């Protein structure tokens, strides 16, 4: 099941997702996203060396894929409006990304063809004339230099921001997994006793949903919006 690809290959989560879908020769739909969700999660799990600045983005897409996969397996599961929006947006975003990725390949070929137009050096051979601006003094120099200094991106600050983002996202994935568990009543903790990290828990949860799909366990729901109960099919009463 492990999906062996080198990390440098992917520019980001969209790039990875698109590759997974195209490898399976699928169109971009909610269903095909659900189909590659496990491979995607496996991939982030296997690649501990995803750069910190990209990890937040990979996790954000992971959260959306978990929602999509859960719905594909449990169509009766209710989603909040925000979750519905996230699911819809991911397929659209991927569709949009695909267009530009393909365009970038075409542009790359054009650039490589070497049909380059060259400019001429500006004002070549024109005599320089000393024409200083009238209204500038040494304090303007300081002002503009300080402005330039302030615009220089500070690397450390950026990192802190990303760390915070990753932590919030991990919490989000955690919450998501908790609420999904509450929505389907079952001893989920039994399934996850051997889990070593959060991704493991998520994978276990998805595995549970897979069992539903394969009718190893059963889902029961009295009425719309009522509690969903999971039962092991072999011990069920009917």
């Amino acid at each position, binding site marked *: 099941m492990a999906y062996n690809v080198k990390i440098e290959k992917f520019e980001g989560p969209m790039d990875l997702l698109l590759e997974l879908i195209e490898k399976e020769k699928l169109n971009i739909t909610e269903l095909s996203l659900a189909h590659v969700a496990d491979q995607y999660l496996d991939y982030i799990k296997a690649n501990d060396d995803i750069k910190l600045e*990209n990890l937040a983005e990979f996790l954000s897409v992971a959260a959306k894929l978990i929602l999509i996969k859960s719905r594909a397996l449990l169509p009766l599961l209710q989603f909040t409006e925000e979750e519905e929006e996230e699911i819809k947006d991911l397929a659209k975003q991927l569709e949009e990304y695909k267009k*530009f*990725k393909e365009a970038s390949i075409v542009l790359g070929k054009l650039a490589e063809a070497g049909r*380059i*137009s060259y*400019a001429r050096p500006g004002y070549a051979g024109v005599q320089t004339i000393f024409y200083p601006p009238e209204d500038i003094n040494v304090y303007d120099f300081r002002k503009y230099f300080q402005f330039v200094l302030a615009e220089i991106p500070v690397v450390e600050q950026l990192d802190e921001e990303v760390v915070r983002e990753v932590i919030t996202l991990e919490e989000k994935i955690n919450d998501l997994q908790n609420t999904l568990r509450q929505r389907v009543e079952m001893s989920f903790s039994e399934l996850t006793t051997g889990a070593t990290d959060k991704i493991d828990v998520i994978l276990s949860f998805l595995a549970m949903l897979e069992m539903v799909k394969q009718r190893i366990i059963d889902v029961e729901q009295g009425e719309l919006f009522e509690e969903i109960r999971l039962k092991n099919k072999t011990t069920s009463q009917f």
Partner: protein
Amino acid sequence: MEQEKLKSAIESILFVSGEPVAVAKIAKVTESSLEDVERSVAVLQEEYSAAKRGMVIIRKENEFQLATNPENAVVVEQLVKSEIQENLSKAGLEVLAIIAYRGPITRVEVEAIRGVNCSFTVRSLLMRGLLERIENPKDNRGYLYKISFDFLKKLGIDSIEKLPDYETLSKDDRIDSIIT
């Protein structure tokens, strides 16, 4: 200025400058109307391509630049060493493609499509002169990005509209669906 003279003057201006020159500046220097300048440049462009001249006139927004005919690149390269010959990375090409078809555009919008932070790539493309930035009228601390004349020259095309599939890719269906 009569058209024959104006055409000759425009050629001189674009030749001396060597850089992109605004239509308004040409109009001012030649004491002509914007329309007359536009018309004369269009005639020059036709003449250039009909006669397979050594130069082409590139247009971007309201500016024109004279550059060598891309057909002669192999010969010209033996005389010049230019930064635009350097190769582009995969990330660089993706960012350029989004900005070429959808610019002027903010960095956040580029990132929304790519799903990944692009600040490093955008900065390096700006430094190489393949992108330009202007202040964002809607956000006084932010910028809008667009492609540059150097990018068009690197691809050997004389206007953005000549990019492959420009018509379809420059349209944002999502925006259209919100408007209509």
